[in-house]
């Protein structure tokens, strides 16, 4: 029980968060974090545990998102049905895709997922009669308040993390890791590698698809460039995994938090602090600095990734003992 006390405490904090923080802006940011927790966990299961690098998370994200959007746009059914149905449809997509593409290994599989991503983006762009193409689909939001979205996102994020936790502790988890470490050896031990890789992919795709369907419901607007984005979804999913820690249960949660925080702090210039500073001092130097810093938000994340790969190759969670030692060392030096 003791090992879960931290997680339970965190969950309790998350549960009361929207009641304690009424500011819709922070609630919005937390919803983004929770969304990324689900996507990151999905990526982590197939890539971190089963070792099959997924470069096309956006394919599943977008299919989930479009399922929800099309339900309301074409059939007039509430987009919320997109949550269960989006998971089912991404599952139905992942199964045949895995069956075909798990014949490929390593980078070749990664490239196949990249292709899947691009194929779906093009379909969504060109098939205008179904998807409205780049015009996008608008879904009116159900709630004005952020709180219902927050709790739904929290539910999905917690379910994703729990799924990963349960799966990696089960027999499946050991199969996944053995496939990651040495596929041929796993095969020779009698593990049906194709089957278990498919299991991992299907579970992952469901989590990512759910996040996509929630995105549609929450954002109220999708187009192919947004939800099938290679850069903003597929690669961001990998970065969340890498920063948090590949092959750790809580890694994606930490990674998601760091990513959203870093992006937003830079975009808003330290939540407007730098802007105030520059107008208060009136110095053109600070103003220019502010401008460059807020324009560097993409760069900042790239630098963070480089730093993590160089010094914390197992991510913030995976290398937590090292990080803790370093931090303690600094503190000790500071007191001396």
């Amino acid at each position: 029980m003791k090992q879960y006390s931290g997680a339970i405490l965190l969950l309790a904090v998350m549960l009361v968060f929207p009641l304690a923080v009424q500011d819709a802006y922070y609630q919005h940011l937390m919803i983004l974090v929770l969304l990324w927790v689900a996507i990151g966990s999905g990526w982590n299961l197939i890539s971190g545990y089963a070792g099959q690098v997924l470069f096309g998370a956006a394919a599943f994200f977008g299919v989930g998102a479009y399922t929800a959007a099309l339900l309301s746009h074409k059939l007039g059914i509430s987009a919320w049905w997109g949550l269960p149905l989006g998971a089912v449809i991404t599952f139905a997509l992942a199964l045949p895709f895995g069956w075909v593409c798990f014949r490929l290994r390593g980078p070749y599989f990664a490239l196949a997922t990249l292709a899947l991503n691009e194929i779906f983006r093009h379909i969504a762009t060109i098939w205008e009669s179904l998807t409205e193409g780049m015009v996008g689909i608008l879904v009116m939001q159900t709630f004005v308040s952020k709180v219902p979205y927050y709790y739904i996102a929290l539910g999905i994020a917690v379910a994703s993390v729990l799924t990963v936790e349960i799966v990696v502790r089960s027999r499946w988890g050991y199969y996944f890791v053995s496939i990651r470490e040495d596929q041929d050896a796993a095969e020779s031990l009698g593990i049906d590698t194709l089957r278990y890789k498919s299991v991992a992919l299907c579970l992952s795709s469901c989590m990512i698809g759910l996040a996509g369907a929630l995105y549609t419901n929450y954002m109220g607007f999708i187009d192919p460039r947004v939800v099938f984005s290679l850069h903003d979804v597929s690669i961001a999913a990998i970065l969340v995994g890498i920063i948090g820690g590949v092959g750790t249960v809580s890694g994606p949660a930490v990674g998601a938090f760091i990513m959203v925080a870093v992006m937003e702090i830079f975009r808003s210039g330290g939540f407007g602090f730098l802007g105030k500073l520059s107008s208060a001092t009136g110095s053109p130097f600070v103003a220019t600095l502010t401008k460059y810093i807020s324009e560097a938000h993409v760069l900042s994340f790239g630098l963070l990734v480089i730093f993590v790969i160089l010094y914390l190759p197992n991510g913030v969670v995976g290398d937590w003992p090292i990080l803790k030692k370093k931090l303690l060392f600094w503190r000790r030096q500071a007191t001396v």
Partner: protein
Amino acid sequence: MKRFAFLVGVVLAVGVSLAGTALAAEGPIKVGIVLPLTGEQAQFGEIERNSFQMAVEEINKAGGVNGRTIELLIEDDTGKPDVGRSAVEKLISRDQVPVLTGGYSSSVAYAICAVAQQRQVPFVVTTGSADKITEQGWDYVFRLCQPVSEYPKALNSFLGEVVKPKTVAILYENTLFGQSGAKDFAKECEEAGMKVLLKEGYEHGAIDFKPLLIKVKAAKPDFLYMISYVMDAALLMRQSKELDLSPKLFVGGGAGFTLPEFAKNAGEAAENVFTAALWSELVPYPGAKAYYEKYVEKFKTPTEYHGAEAYASMYVVADALKRAKELTPKGIREALVTTDMMTAFGPVKFIAYGKKKQQNSLPTYLMQWQKGVLETVWPKNVATKPYVYPTPAWTK
């Protein structure tokens, strides 16, 4: 006595500081603006930001809004709808702005509109031009610029009266702006009895257009219509020249074709290209030319219709703030409904027509690049130069 003096001092200090805060509550009126300051559309975002700031400086210098100054809170949307949404959430809930403007790309503007409507904060759309934005029946959304389906209005009358083409080929970038513009234009051409020989989209940011252009050449259309941003536009024209593709005329659907960078990058290949346009500094509106000259003097770079839209938006918002009975989102919305004024971008009045609501209705223009200058050539009554048609072949 000393003690008494100290006490008086303290009371005075407290009193002054309290008065100070009371004054602060009466401080500047905040106006929230969302623009793409980084990312692919940053170039346009910057022109708009400069124009907004220029306008607000003028307004504040002229006495502000009933004695209060306007403070702009400009947020970067990076060209992405979800980021735009974060930005507008911040503006509404943290900064509590009573009115919003800006909105460059259609998809970002769309996402912002949904939030603005839901939170009941009026939003004056500056540039986002997808038709749907004002077709949702949203009563907190106003649009200053023309919707994309109306961009080629002047072009259509030119085609009908002068060129009378029979066939057309359409190339467009695969974005909301390109795809919806191409669709509407194809429909209009067919209604006018023209045959659309080819209608193809390309990836935004593509480099090699020759396969597409060879197809166009084989189809031999009377004219070629292109909806592109600036780099694609320049490359399309340069490669057309290389391939010696000579339809009767080349027409750009606004956006990239109107920018000074287009002429710079395309070089000679830009010569005689027509483009639909919403504005140029030569349009017959008071303040248009002055705005252009002031901008060039201040920022040392030319400006174009996006900047004029931003500049005009600021004046429209300031006008509404002046007339609003109370400075609440609701009060400002009511003032915006009755807007009826002249700006550097043209007359502004938010009316309902067709499926649209609270949409400003403005004429559009046809322009042509002549010796590196974008001249207005149609409608005739505002033309600065006669049009060059038929376009001479490249080889001449």
